[in-house]
């Protein structure tokens, strides 16, 4: 259990590293974490940050598209992600730091497939 917690913490740390490229990360709410459960619309495997589009119910229970931003493709690859790790239609559950402006989206912290397996393993990151 403790190991599991450490693993999640490691993922958070390594994902948080790319805070510089392309924009400051001040747009995300660092005091909040929410879990989005839905289905993958698209994984945009692009530099400097990937975008995972997920169809899921919003806070009011209405289906919406969430734009979830992750790290760099190179760094995520070292953590066990890849451009085809998920496919459109796959069930997914994603922990994010939501956008401060209330739009449906946020910063990727961790993700699990429908069968409960963690994407990116236990945080085996860059260093």
């Amino acid at each position, binding site marked *: 259990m403790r190991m599991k917690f450490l693993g999640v913490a490691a993922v958070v740390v390594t994902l948080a590293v790319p805070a*510089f*490229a392309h*924009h400051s*990360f001040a747009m995300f709410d660092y*005091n909040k974490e929410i879990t989005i459960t839905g289905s993958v619309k698209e994984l945009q495997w692009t530099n400097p940050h990937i*975008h995972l589009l997920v169809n899921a119910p919003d806070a009011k229970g209405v289906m919406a598209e969430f734009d979830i931003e992750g790290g760099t*493709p*190179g760094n995520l690859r070292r953590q066990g992600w890849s451009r085809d790790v998920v496919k459109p239609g796959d069930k997914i559950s994603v922990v994010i730091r939501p956008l401060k402006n209330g739009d449906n989206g946020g910063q990727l912290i961790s993700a699990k497939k429908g069968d409960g397996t963690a994407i990116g393993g236990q945080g085996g990151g*860059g260093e």
Partner: protein
Amino acid sequence: MTTRTTSRLQLVSLTALLGLVITAIPAEARQSGEGNGARPDFSGVWRTINPPAAPRVNTTLRWLPGPGELPDFTPAYKQRYDKIQASRETGSEETESVARCLPPGMPWFMGAQYGLEILQTRDKIGMFSEWMDAYRRIYLDGRKMPADFDPSYNGYSTGRWEGDTLVVETVNLRGETELDRYGSPHSDQLRIVERIRLVEPNILEDVLTMTDPVAFTKPWTQTRRYRRTTKENDELHENTCAEGLRLAK
């Protein structure tokens, strides 16, 4: 004819003997340059050994520098630094050039958070950082910077060996880049002296001493360390920041 055959034989056996001598030197000693008079070889792919995570302001994610992490600024540059912090506190990225896909430049280049690939020859060292797809070169052949060289993000670097330590001097830097993640400013008078060495066969250390008569009241030193990657983890990837610009809203 006989003489030539003899000398060829001698040459062959001399080469073989030399080969034996070199093979007899442990790999570690060869790497650190001991024993055979060779220079240490920094070639390889290196991952930064990160310092403990710095605290950040929760609301804006602005990094908070720890003790010794900031240069002693002159009054004008302290004022500039304070302005940068005030701007970042609002969540603005106007003072964050890498957020707009501009190169980090030296010395921040050596932060190399996604890995650093070094290729070393006798006359030149090339360093590629995955972060922001950046490249710098260090000339080791004794050349001087051409008089009309344009200022650049990574400046102009020349190096010389002091025993097993490579001493690199970098000048001719652009003045508008940030020194680090705290957004510390500097002028175009910034001069960097690096002392790069292998502190262990697979640990590389870079001690950077920066002087800037316009921005700092005294020299400022930073130490960075890197660990050599294993073969399974020695490939770097593209990190083309500009690719994101076409998707930007």
